[in-house]
């Protein structure tokens, strides 16, 4: 077992994990209230993997992840306000409401994005790492993705290129045992994912993704290899999501007992208990951390609620950079009669009707579910 670090570090780790937990719970609640749209993928259960990883990174290292990355941004220091506002689709969001829950982004903290396409972030990570190498910088890129992503074509392609070019990148699989509703042994021929890149010349290690200290220590070691040996590695963090794949997942594919078993390894509970057991934190510390997380998340909801909707005039903003020496880009400008909605919240009745009737779970007989949602 990894030795417990100093009080400051423990406070920091627990605070970040608690913030993520509370944030995700609240995001789920707000989604049920239809404050957020689209898909909502929560990382509850995976906090140790996230925080252990980010705590091993330098501020100038790059992090890149998936559509389940509210927590990753928070762990990097992005304000809960901005993440919640993004989920609400508001101007105050990390991307002004353009990206939504699946596409959180914070350049300042070098969180290079959440991405909706499974496996899509792997080559991007290679590119970020290539930039570090190209410029002789000693920054490292950490690329996080799910077990399901190891089956994508990008996985093999990117592993090979990263190994071939000795790119400073740590590939970290958040193996939560399921890709959506498909259990790992039903989607991957080899379930020991740490071995999966050996054929591409990338050594791997499986670590306990429920133990924040283990994650922190081992990821630090892998970052060190990337930074100092210029060699990519693959880390498989064994973890679990307590919630469904997304907000509207009936979870027919797993047994309640399995979830219960994993709940006993709850990364927050076990870490807090250990900190208390070893006398590094007091029960009051832990309570205080929770209370602060509550506060922060409550404030975030208020911020997001108060943040304005993006203006209709902003629809085309930022699509292109129009430089002086270049021609015009606003293609629509010259396209005649682009008759389309300018209605926003006041969208006409049918559109609303269709949107609602179309949502996979907007079965009218299912009154108990208060909001329509789609599953994936």
């Amino acid at each position: 077992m990894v030795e417990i670090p100093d009080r400051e570090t423990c406070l920091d780790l627990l605070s970040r994990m608690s913030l993520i937990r509370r944030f995700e719970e609240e995001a789920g609640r707000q989604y049920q209230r239809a404050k957020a749209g689209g898909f909502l993928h929560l990382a509850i259960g995976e906090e140790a993997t996230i925080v252990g990883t980010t705590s091993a990174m330098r501020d100038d290292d790059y992090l890149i992840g998936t559509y389940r990355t509210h927590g990753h941004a928070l762990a990097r220091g992005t304000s809960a306000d901005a993440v919640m506002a993004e989920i609400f689709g508001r101007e105050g969001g990390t991307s002004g409401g353009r990206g939504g829950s699946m596409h959180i982004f914070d350049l300042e903290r070098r969180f290079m994005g959440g991405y909706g396409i499974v496996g899509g972030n792997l080559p991007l990570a290679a590119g970020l790492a290539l930039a570090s190498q190209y410029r002789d910088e000693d920054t490292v890129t950490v690329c996080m993705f799910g077990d399901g992503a190891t089956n994508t074509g990008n996985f093999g392609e990117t592993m090979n290129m990263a190994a071939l070019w000795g790119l400073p990148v740590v590939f970290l699989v958040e193996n939560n045992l399921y890709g959506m509703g498909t259990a790992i042994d039903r989607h991957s021929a080899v379930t020991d994912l740490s071995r999966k890149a050996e054929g591409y010349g990338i050594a791997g290690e499986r670590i306990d993704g429920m133990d924040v200290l283990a994650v922190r220590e081992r990821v630090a070691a892998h970052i060190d290899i990337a930074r100092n040996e210029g060699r990519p590695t693959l880390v498989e963090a064994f973890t679990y999501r307590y919630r469904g794949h997304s907000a509207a997942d009936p979870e027919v594919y797993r047994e309640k007992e399995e979830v219960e078993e994993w709940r006993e390894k709850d990364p927050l509970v076990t870490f807090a208990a250990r900190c208390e057991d070893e006398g590094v934190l007091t029960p009051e510390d832990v309570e205080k951390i929770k209370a602060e997380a509550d506060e922060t998340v409550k404030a975030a909801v208020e911020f997001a609620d108060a943040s304005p909707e993006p203006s209709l005039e902003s629809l085309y903003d930022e699509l292109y950079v129009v430089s002086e020496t270049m021609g015009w880009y606003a293609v629509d400008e010259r396209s005649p009669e682009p008759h389309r909605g300018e209605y926003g919240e006041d969208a006409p009745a049918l559109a609303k009707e269709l949107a609602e009737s179309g949502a996979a779970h907007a079965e009218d007989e299912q009154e108990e579910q208060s909001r329509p949602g789609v599953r994936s």
Partner: protein
Amino acid sequence: MTPQKTAQTEEETEAKVNDDSTESKDGEVPVLRMREALRDAMAEEMRRDEDVFVMGEDVGVFQGAFKVTEGLLDEFGEKRVRDTPISENSIVGTGVGAAMAGLRPIVELMTVNFSLLAFDQIINHAAAIPYMFNGHVRVPMVIRMPGGGGHQLGPTHSHSFEALFLQIPGLLVACPSTPADGKALLKAAIRDENPVIFIEHESLYGIKGEVPEGERVQRFGEAAIRREGTDVTIVGVLKMAHVAEKAAEILEAEHGISAEVIDPRTLRPLDLDTILESVRKTNRAVVVEEGWPHGGVGANLSTLITEQAFDYLDAPIQRVTGADVPMPYSKRLEQAAIPHEENVVEAVLATTEGAFGNRKDRS
């Protein structure tokens, strides 16, 4: 959906899947949701032909990301309802190979957005193989995929790719807008010897409609006239077929304009004749689509109609399209980027400008 509820639903489904006449009472036409109609089409064809099977991400245990394959695993088992890894290009390619060997795969891509990863297998393999090998082998497969915006799924998850697929010789492209068409076109697609891109709309899975029972197979290349009219022809695809109908109602009620609404149902082949006949009568046309304005379904149709019926047109054809941006997540922006019936009405008024005045009292 709660777990308890699910169990129930599965039982109900089971019943439906095993006996598709249960809902028909006293000669009444059963009313189904789009997803049920599509599921029934697959189930019926799988019962009819052992070679038909379904393959895709989460189509089995999970019952389909949008529940379209619900119940199929239970009835047909793992051999014929195959969950796959997340490997879009190889899923499609495996389907192509199986089809070349004589099976009839139905490949589900979870959404059109991920079809981008399979474009090589779709275009360079599925579409090209029959022609490239001079008809010595065929690729009788269906690639189903839902798309479209409206759910705040954001820039990577809201695409409408009808206009990409319709370009490709070797493919057929279907885009049903009603449960009845969904079922009848999917049955046709499964029986067809050619590779079919079958585009569904995420927002239409929940709509209900009468679905005649049994063997109705809808020929490709036959448009449907959803509403007859005399003043203007509105062509709408997928969800936009509904928006067009709604617009027609408003036009009738508020402007006294009689609009004919046409749903092409398949974009490749395209039933241009039906559309031309209508335009020769109305002398005006509006095309409504959810996709991007450049090189879209509307651009194609507008060109085809203008070429063939130039002398019949009293005004340039109007297009109503999605905005020329990746779909923003924000609800307000997304709604602004998607066409609504008001936009169609505007477009119709633009094309009929001054021609009819407000003819509300006319009829």
